[in-house]
């Protein structure tokens, strides 16, 4: 077992598709929460292969996409300061703020670096004691422990020149926000497997009960997604609503407890603005006052101005599953990954950007249906 290629077996995928076709009798709308899942569904052509009764809508699941513009502007402002090394994950650097992206700031001479891990940023701070190293710490619950560990490590080493801009969003409050919208079309969820690897399943039982909606914690490979969809459809067809775990090989019922402890050591829950949506109560993480020295937003005084999103962008409706990327008049014309108008086009895991990359395949499939 390598735990990867086995889950890309086309024969097994066909068998799953066949089983889904046999099971489904009515139209169902299912939302996959995570952008990584959207990416796999489109990349492996699963959207076109599913029976036409099943509509997959794509959730807000990309933390890079939903990072508010003003935080990016703040990072760019800091990156331009002489003694600052600004670093983050690759996809964050490409995302435009109100004027430019961090990569453009780099082209203009700012010291901006792409790192694989926040722990590398701590090393960088150790190696450059005369510089301020700032890590743009973006992520869902999946990434929060790594970002928290970086602060814990810097604290243990007594580093004074390391800080983070925390742009952390939480998934369950966003799912609740979607479900409580009277316009919602979502009848079931594939929950984000790696978020649950950290947090466990407990947060979803109340949502299942309150909104009577099936939730299946699902992985990211084609077989995982098809298995998850089959589990959801079986529930829907029987008018059941349960919390089930497709991704039990890595998701434990209680999640990863040491990881949760690292998060609560460094962060506290706060209200959070989601790019393309609104402020969602209790849906973000901020650095605790105790660790304020490691909070770049408190450590440095940055003149802040709030910026407005493009008004013709339908990002909100797309991220709630009400519209598809191809429903937008700006798609592929005024709005492209190179100059996005809104959140889902900004990173490769946003649903609009995913559609843009695989546009020709999707377009052909939709024509074939008509």
């Amino acid at each position: 077992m390598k735990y990867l290629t086995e889950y890309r077996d086309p024969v097994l995928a066909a068998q799953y598709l066949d089983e889904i076709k046999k099971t489904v009798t009515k139209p169902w709308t299912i939302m996959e929460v995570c952008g990584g899942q959207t990416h796999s569904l489109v990349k492996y052509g699963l959207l076109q292969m599913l029976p036409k009764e099943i509509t997959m809508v794509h959730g807000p699941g990309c933390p890079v996409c939903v990072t508010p513009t003003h935080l990016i502007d703040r990072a760019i402002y800091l990156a331009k300061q002489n003694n600052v090394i600004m670093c983050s994950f690759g996809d964050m650097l490409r995302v435009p703020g109100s004027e430019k992206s961090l990569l453009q700031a780099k082209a203009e001479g700012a010291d901006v670096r792409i790192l694989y891990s926040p722990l590398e940023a701590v090393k960088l701070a150790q190696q450059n004691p005369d510089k301020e190293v700032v890590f743009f710490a973006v992520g869902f619950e999946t990434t929060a422990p790594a970002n928290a560990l970086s602060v814990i490590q810097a604290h243990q080493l007594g580093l004074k020149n390391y800080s983070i801009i925390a742009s952390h969003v939480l998934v369950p409050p966003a799912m609740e926000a979607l479900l409580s919208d009277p316009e919602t079309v979502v009848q079931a969820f594939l929950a984000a497997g790696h978020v649950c690897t950290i947090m466990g399943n407990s947060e979803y039982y109340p949502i299942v009960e309150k909104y009577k909606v099936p939730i299946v914690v699902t992985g990211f490979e084609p077989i995982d997604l098809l298995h998850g969809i089959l589990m959801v459809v079986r529930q829907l067809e029987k008018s059941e609503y349960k919390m089930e775990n497709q991704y039990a090989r890595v998701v434990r019922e209680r999640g990863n407890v040491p990881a949760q402890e690292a998060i609560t050591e460094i962060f506290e829950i706060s209200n959070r603005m989601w790019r393309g949506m609104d402020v969602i109560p209790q849906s973000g993480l901020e650095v605790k006052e105790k660790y304020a020295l490691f909070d770049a937003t408190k450590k440095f005084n940055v003149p802040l101005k709030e910026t407005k999103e493009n008004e013709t962008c339908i990002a909100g409706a797309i991220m709630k599953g009400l519209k598809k990327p191809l429903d937008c008049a700006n798609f592929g014309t005024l709005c492209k990954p190179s100059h996005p108008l809104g959140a889902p086009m900004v990173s490769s895991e946003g649903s609009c950007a995913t559609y843009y990359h695989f546009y020709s395949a999707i377009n052909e499939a939709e024509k074939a249906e008509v």
Partner: protein
Amino acid sequence: MCLAIPGRIKSIEEQKEGYMRMGKVELGGIVKDINLQLVPDAKENDYVLVHVGVAISIVDEEEAKRSLEFLQQMNELDELYNSPEEPYDKLSTKEERVKQGDEIINKMMS
């Protein structure tokens, strides 16, 4: 962004004072230094799920097989329905048999 991939732990380093638990993990043919602080029970040769340089879970081999064998088990259940020795066959309607099969599957899944 939430991309995480499985890799095998090749070796676990002795923990240095003030530093976290680290190890060498083989990820698709590449060996990287990975933080093992959040998987205290992980041993050499275990597969762990790695996200941004940090191992966040130990991959459970038994559970890993379930997705791959799920359909096969479903088909075996179908065969059970059709076998005359089995009590399921005595149930008169298809709905009842499906219900019974689902109960077995649910037991297997839990």
